[in-house]
């Protein structure tokens, strides 16, 4: 209980004094997760739309695998990305290991199935509603996908936010591929793991509270920008 209050006090103090190290770590966390989120959305949303409108032989299997991958263990993702990006790996020559880019790649892999699965659920329902109309209008597959993605954009925001939530709180994969290097790849979650390991529980808690505040702030901002709860939108 004492640690909790101390953590709160330190968190308040770190924020109130605009601690430069905290700001640097928090901004890096945001930059990495938002980059991973944008890339993941570019892959996951069209994939979800394609799975909603296109009928092919292994469609159900692909959807089942995608759903199963929502629980993809980040540590395993980190390990696989590590092997691929390590010097002896197939992409070792790019020299990406222990860089923010490697962390973005790992986070992206972790959140793509989550975003795609949630988005597919929404798009499937909308496709069920629109099916007869769009078929009767003789629209192309691309037009169907664009129509669904645009009209379901608010539901897709929820999918993206779920991806953001998973990404910003992720530690296993980015610890392995980023290495938690001070001023280079240290982010809030890896800093929390480090401080906990050192026994600095109060500081770890402070960083945790900042992380939660950051996640809430980003969510609120996106909701506000997307006007998701405005009355009479639908």
């Amino acid at each position, binding site marked *: 209980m004492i640690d909790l209050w101390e953590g709160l006090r330190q968190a308040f103090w770190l924020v109130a004094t605009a601690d430069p190290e905290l700001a640097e770590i928090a901004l890096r966390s945001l930059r990495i997760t938002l980059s991973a989120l944008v890339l993941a959305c570019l892959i996951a949303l069209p994939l979800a739309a394609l799975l909603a409108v296109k009928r092919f032989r292994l469609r159900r299997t692909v959807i089942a695998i995608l759903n199963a991958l929502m629980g993809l263990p980040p540590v395993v993702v980190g390990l696989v990305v590590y092997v691929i990006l390590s010097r002896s790996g197939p992409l070792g020559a790019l020299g990406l290991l222990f860089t923010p880019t490697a962390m973005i790649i790992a986070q992206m892999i972790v959140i793509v199935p989550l975003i795609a699965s949630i988005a597919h659920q929404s798009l499937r329902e*909308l496709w069920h509603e*629109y099916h*007869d*109309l769009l078929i009767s209008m003789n*629209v192309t597959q691309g*037009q169907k996908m664009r*129509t669904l993605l645009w*009209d379901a954009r608010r539901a897709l925001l929820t999918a993206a936010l779920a991806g953001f939530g998973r990404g910003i709180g992720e530690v296993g994969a980015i610890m392995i591929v980023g290495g938690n290097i001070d001023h280079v790849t240290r982010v809030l979650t890896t800093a929390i793991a480090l401080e906990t390991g050192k026994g600095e529980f109060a500081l770890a808690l402070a960083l945790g509270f900042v992380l939660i505040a950051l996640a809430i702030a980003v969510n609120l901002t996106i909701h506000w920008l997307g006007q998701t709860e405005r009355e009479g*939108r639908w």
Partner: protein
Amino acid sequence: MSELFPLSVKGAVTRRHGKVLVGPVDLELDGAGTCVILGPNGAGKTSLLRLLHGTARLHAGEITWGCGTEAARNAQAFVFQRPVMLRRSVGENLAYPLRLRGTPRTEARARARDWAARVGLSGLFDRQATVLSGGEQQKLATARALIGDPGLLFLDEPTASLDGRATREMEEILAKARANGTRLVLSTHDMGQARRLADRVIFLLGGKVHEEGAAEGFFSAPRTPEAQAFLKGDIVE
């Protein structure tokens, strides 16, 4: 007459789960007037409309148009019994078919405004389409189908759930479309409406064309006992 026509249907059959919904059907449609499809529930009216429109699978027979099938698909539109509203504003719903064809945004919006005025939805132009009343939604769906100037418009019981006023407004819209050269093919349960709108009648029974011909002849002197019974309001199976 539009190059869409004549529409020729020979031995057309559509099935679902092995059960024949419609067919075999033989029909010839030219490009003038309003054709009304009549028949009791389960006669196959909706299935025939979908078959002609190309959204139900043709399992046997052939359907040919004056132009090619793909050109024919793009020259026709369909209004469903339960209107499907895009989750967009009234204006965006109206502009949607035009935008699909690559019409510039400003032009599409201007034409959408014009059509909204024609069907009495100007005041609701920026309102979400999904919050409109049933009658307003059906008018919007019809205007959205007509905005691309289709040569042929299919309507599946377009006034089935509308009150008298909304039905009259819908019929006025359809009369104007007909006057502008759009061929209308609609199914209805409303005998009064069939008498008001039809130039030609197709009477369906058990998925087959039981009787067809000019509306005047059908309503004044139906040839078959089933059609006579149907017009009298008896139960026909």
